[in-house]
């Protein structure tokens, strides 16, 4: 399911179909997160990713109009080069997966694992500093987006 969606992302010519198949990928991945007992990440994936970020993409597509992709044009060799590169990358990843050595798992309480409570405790005690840093990151991103999308004075 997720792989089908991923292929759709890359192969559809119209951007709106790519976005919709990316939504498919995200929903499939969220089910996998639930399977891996990550309830909170599952909820965030659906609400933030499949909800907010994808709606943002759809808005921009609606704003820009349906821009169909033209033919391959002058960079045809780039396609073949990238196919070669990607095959090498996949092979390397496969080789790495073969050699993964798992250490002994920590003995976590699996009835407690991945709940909102355990995530919150981790986020606000051990990882308080990175958590606060992400708030600054989001602030900077919001200010940057407003700056970039404002109406220029000389445009008026």
């Amino acid at each position, binding site marked *: 399911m997720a792989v089908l969606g991923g292929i759709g992302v890359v192969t559809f010519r119209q951007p709106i179909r790519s976005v919709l198949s990316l939504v498919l990928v995200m929903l499939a991945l969220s089910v996998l997160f639930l399977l891996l007992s990550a309830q909170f990440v599952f909820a965030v994936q659906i609400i933030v990713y499949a909800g907010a970020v994808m709606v943002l993409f759809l808005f921009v597509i609606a704003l820009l109009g349906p*821009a169909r992709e033209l033919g391959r044009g002058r960079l045809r060799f780039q396609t073949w080069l990238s*196919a070669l590169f990607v095959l090498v990358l996949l092979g390397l990843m496969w080789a790495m997966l073969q050699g993964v050595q798992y250490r002994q798992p920590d003995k*976590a309480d699996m009835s407690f694992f991945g709940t909102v409570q355990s995530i919150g405790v981790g986020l606000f005690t051990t990882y308080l500093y990175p958590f606060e840093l992400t708030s600054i990151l989001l602030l900077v991103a919001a200010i940057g987006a407003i700056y970039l999308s404002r109406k220029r004075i000389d445009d008026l």
Partner: protein
Amino acid sequence: MTLDIGGSQLDTSWFLLLSAILFVLGAVGVLVRRNPLVILISIELMLNAANLTLVTFSRQLQNLEGQLFALMSMTVAAAEAVVGLAILVDIFRTRDAEDIDELSELRG
């Protein structure tokens, strides 16, 4: 290495393999596609694949830090999408660029 999920055994490496395939698909999208919007979408796909790996290892090692880091990377992905789309809208406002190669010169 197997995981005990809901009473049935599942191999961890399937999740990792799926993540690798999704990441590679995203890389293909970035390299082959020429619409800047689709390139951003492919980057999102790669970030999602990385998230799947993080959560998988978090479950395998029964360690919550992977899930916390996945949340962090979701934040970063959202910020990246916002700024990237703002830049795109700004570019499209000044000129109609359907091909990212047309934007190779950096003149205002």
